[in-house]
């Protein structure tokens, strides 16, 4: 019984309609979250003690960096679900993740290096965390390239899924890199749950931004996914009926 919803997720038609119904709400929430976070972060929160207003880039950089990793994990998990339960929907979801993940990885890289120029005096250093984030970008690109290189959609789904799962090893490497190598990059300041080493006045807007970025991801991924569904099911009864209407 409890599992029926799970397998209903596997129905493209059902998913398409449900996602369509939720979409506006999620977009609304995202916009609210992003604007609250931005206003709070950019105008209300105090400037950093050392870096002044420069540090406000944190409100983009850190959420983007977290999301780049989060997206990869989601992508790999749904790839695994697709392989194990042979669920088309899971594959489609997984495939829809990588362009978005790549975009956020790029955002984290760009904001990071813009931040790096004034603080470290250079746009780029070959530091462990920076490098592993760059590797993450390559993994995303590889995933997309592999998916697009295959003619047959069934094969493409499965090979991309395997690659996504294999690449997951990089995620812990990124996260722990700062501890394993002594590096230039900021050590974990939020992830220490017990006592974050960041001031509360900056913590709240940051948390809001992080949360809204996650919502942002969902609101981005749903249209991609719905597009994908329509394209792949273009020959099925329900899509035809819908188009004719």
């Amino acid at each position, binding site marked *: 019984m409890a599992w029926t919803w799970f397998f209903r997720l596997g129905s493209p038609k059902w998913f398409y309609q449900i996602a369509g119904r939720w979409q506006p709400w999620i977009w609304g929430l995202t916009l609210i979250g992003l604007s609250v976070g931005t206003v709070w972060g950019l105008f209300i929160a105090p400037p950093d003690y050392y870096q002044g207003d420069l540090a406000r880039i944190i409100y983009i950089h850190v959420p983007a960096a977290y999301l780049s990793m989060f997206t990869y994990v989601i992508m790999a998990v749904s790839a695994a679900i697709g392989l194990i339960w042979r669920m088309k929907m899971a594959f489609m979801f997984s495939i829809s993740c990588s362009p978005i993940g790549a975009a956020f990885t790029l955002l984290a890289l760009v904001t990071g290096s813009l931040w790096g120029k004034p603080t470290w005096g250079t746009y780029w250093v070959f530091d462990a965390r920076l490098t592993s984030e760059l590797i993450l970008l390559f993994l995303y690109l590889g995933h997309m390239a592999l998916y697009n290189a295959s*003619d*047959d959609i*069934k094969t493409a789904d499965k090979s991309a899924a395997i690659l996504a799962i294999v690449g997951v090893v990089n995620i812990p490497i990124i996260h722990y890199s700062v501890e394993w190598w002594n590096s230039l990059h900021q050590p974990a300041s939020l992830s220490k749950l017990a006592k974050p080493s960041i001031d509360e006045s900056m913590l709240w807007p940051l948390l809001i931004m992080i949360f809204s970025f996650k919502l942002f991801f969902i609101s981005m991924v749903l249209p991609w996914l719905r597009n994908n569904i329509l394209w792949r099911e273009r*020959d099925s009864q329900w899509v035809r009926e819908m188009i004719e209407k």
Partner: protein
Amino acid sequence: MYQDFSIESEQLALIRGERLLFKQCSFSMKNGQVLQIRGPNGAGKTSLLRVLCGIMEPDQGDVLWCGKSLRKMRESFGANVLYLGHQIGVKRNMTVRENLLFYSNLRQAKPLTTIEEAIQAVGLTGYEDELAAHLSQGQTRRVSLARLLTEPSALWILDEPFVALDVEGQGWLAHLFEQHLAKRGSVIFTSHQSIDLNVKVNTLEVSGGSHA
């Protein structure tokens, strides 16, 4: 005398690209039968054989081997079936003998015919230690057909096995089919040539090519 087996397809459907090749394709087969799959170029014969072998997955339906889904029976299927497609897996850089030896070692089944005998049967005496790269088209196909002798399998699935063989070779292969049936073996094959077989041949027509 081969073990009993059965292969069935249940309402198979396959889409390649934009085309629905076949749907509701059902048949079943047991020991001692011959099935010829017929249809014009591009009908989907090769694709159907690949689905039957579990190489490609059907879009609908399933192939049953001895009553169970093929996906769960890979071991037993592999041990009892020999598939030869358009690409026949003869290594150019191995000699005729080495090619046959490798595949028969892989299967670990006790051959009824020694490799020397098989080479002789397919008319490659004198070429045992020749690299397959130095063989003609028809001779290369003969190497792959020699595997029918060295690797005893109940079911042969052959995609256009008569192609590239000379007249004498075609006769030999037809005769081999008959012998195989007598031992309760079965054959599924495709061919555009008309072949004289002294046994009852079931046919399955694939029409294929309609837009999905």
